[in-house]
């Protein structure tokens, strides 16, 4: 009598059990999530996968483009002529400003030279096309193609014809990721155009209006005010239109006013965007004298560097 074999024959071997696999891959996923949140060490992995996915993503644009082309071929000539006329009007209206701009820029440079202020050396811009957007209902991000004059830079500001759209947050070989100003983790330093009050505009996520947080109830802000970039962050050049205040709630019982603003740019509509060049690096923040810090925190012993 032969013995029953202690192990099943080799063709029944199917590797580790599903539970063991789940435990393994689950732990790897959690480790990836943790590493991706805390450290930016996985960018090479992400970049490799992005390159592999790129042909598929390009192919996924084809149906939309074909539909767009069909719709365009059905667009009536009169509608196109109307649009053309409107664009001409717009161009004429802006021409006056544009012509005045050259002389004003010259005058500004002269005045700056007189005052000894470092001038802002003009900002370069690259036109890019939005490839795809908004598949994830949680995050407000866009993917744009490579610019006509080489790749876009990390951290560059992105605008459209009406205002600021967002900022380049990741650069892949063929495309770049733009985080919109409506994203929950995005903040833009702004200034109220009318009164000059400085603040920061925080995105609030999908379907919600960005807000000016930490503004005192008596701050000089009114409904209808335009917010422009203040330029003090060194990312957004100063003076770009960002949003218009649409709701304002001053409650004496609250520490801060609730101020909501609607983005002026077609954050979720524009097809073509302008990527500005990254401004020159700001000088480093001056070191605070150690004794001043010690004086401010008596009893804390040694001053601790943050």
């Amino acid at each position: 009598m032969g013995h029953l074999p202690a192990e099943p024959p080799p063709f029944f071997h199917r590797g580790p059990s599903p539970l063991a696999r789940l435990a393994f891959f689950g732990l790897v996923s959690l480790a990836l999530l943790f590493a991706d949140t805390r450290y930016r060490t996985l960018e090479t992995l992400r970049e490799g996968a992005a390159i592999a996915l790129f042909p598929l993503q390009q192919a996924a644009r084809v149906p939309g483009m074909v539909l767009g082309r069909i719709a365009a071929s059905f667009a009536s000539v009169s509608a196109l002529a109307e649009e053309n006329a409107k664009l001409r009007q717009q161009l004429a209206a802006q021409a006056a400003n544009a012509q005045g701009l050259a002389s004003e820029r010259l005058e500004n440079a002269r005045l700056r030279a007189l005052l000894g202020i470092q001038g802002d050396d003009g900002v370069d811009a690259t036109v890019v096309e939005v490839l795809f957007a908004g598949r994830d209902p949680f995050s407000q991000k866009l993917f744009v193609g490579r610019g006509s004059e080489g790749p876009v830079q990390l951290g560059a500001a992105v605008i459209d014809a009406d205002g600021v759209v967002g900022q380049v947050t990741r650069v892949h070989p063929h495309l770049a990721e733009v985080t919109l100003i409506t994203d929950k983790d995005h903040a833009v330093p702004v200034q109220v155009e009318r009164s000059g009050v400085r603040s920061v505009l925080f995105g609030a996520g999908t379907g919600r209006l960005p807000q000016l947080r930490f503004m005192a109830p008596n701050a000089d802000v009114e409904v209808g005010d335009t917010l422009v970039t203040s330029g003090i962050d060194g990312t957004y050049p100063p003076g770009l239109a960002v949003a218009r205040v649409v709701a304002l709630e001053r409650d004496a019982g609250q520490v801060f006013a609730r101020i909501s603003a609607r983005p002026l740019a077609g954050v979720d509509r524009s097809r073509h965007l302008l990527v500005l060049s990254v401004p020159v690096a700001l000088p480093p923040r001056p070191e605070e004298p150690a004794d001043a810090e010690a004086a401010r925190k008596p009893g804390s012993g040694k001053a601790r560097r943050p």
Partner: protein
Amino acid sequence: MALPRVPPLYPAQPEEILRPARPWFVALTLALGLYANLLPLEGATLALRPDFLALLLLYWCIKEPRYVGVGVAWFVGLLMDVGDATLLGQHALAYAVLAYAAEYFRRRVLRFPLWQQAAQVAVLLVLCAALVLLVRVVGGAPLPRWTYAVAPLVGALLWPVISVVLQWPQRPTRSPSEL
């Protein structure tokens, strides 16, 4: 002389024996699912779009567990994370759990008629979506609107269609009685 028969386009009976799926066919359908997930949709169509990849993974985990299991699901989820520019690992985790649940349920699910299978699939797809949501909320995202729950249910409604279409190439072309 008998003409080659076209397999019937209605769901296979539980007692019917299907041919094994070809690996390239499985890979092709998964690639198509990824493609469908990467389509740039907006607004209402985006809210209605089911997670095709999760649906296909579920189908193949139930039908062909030798080819598609927790590992494949995890890897495909990683690709989905990159495609969506989200945190690496959230779809991977959700799909791995989905594949495990499919492995657990698969012997039972196939005994039911298609619409009852769809009801069970709805539970699994909602679980998968809830896992993605959980990771997002732990990461600090605000809760989405109720429409977030619509897409998994649409996916479950597609289950009968997907079952019939995907088992079509595996149907034997002649009936066993006419040997």
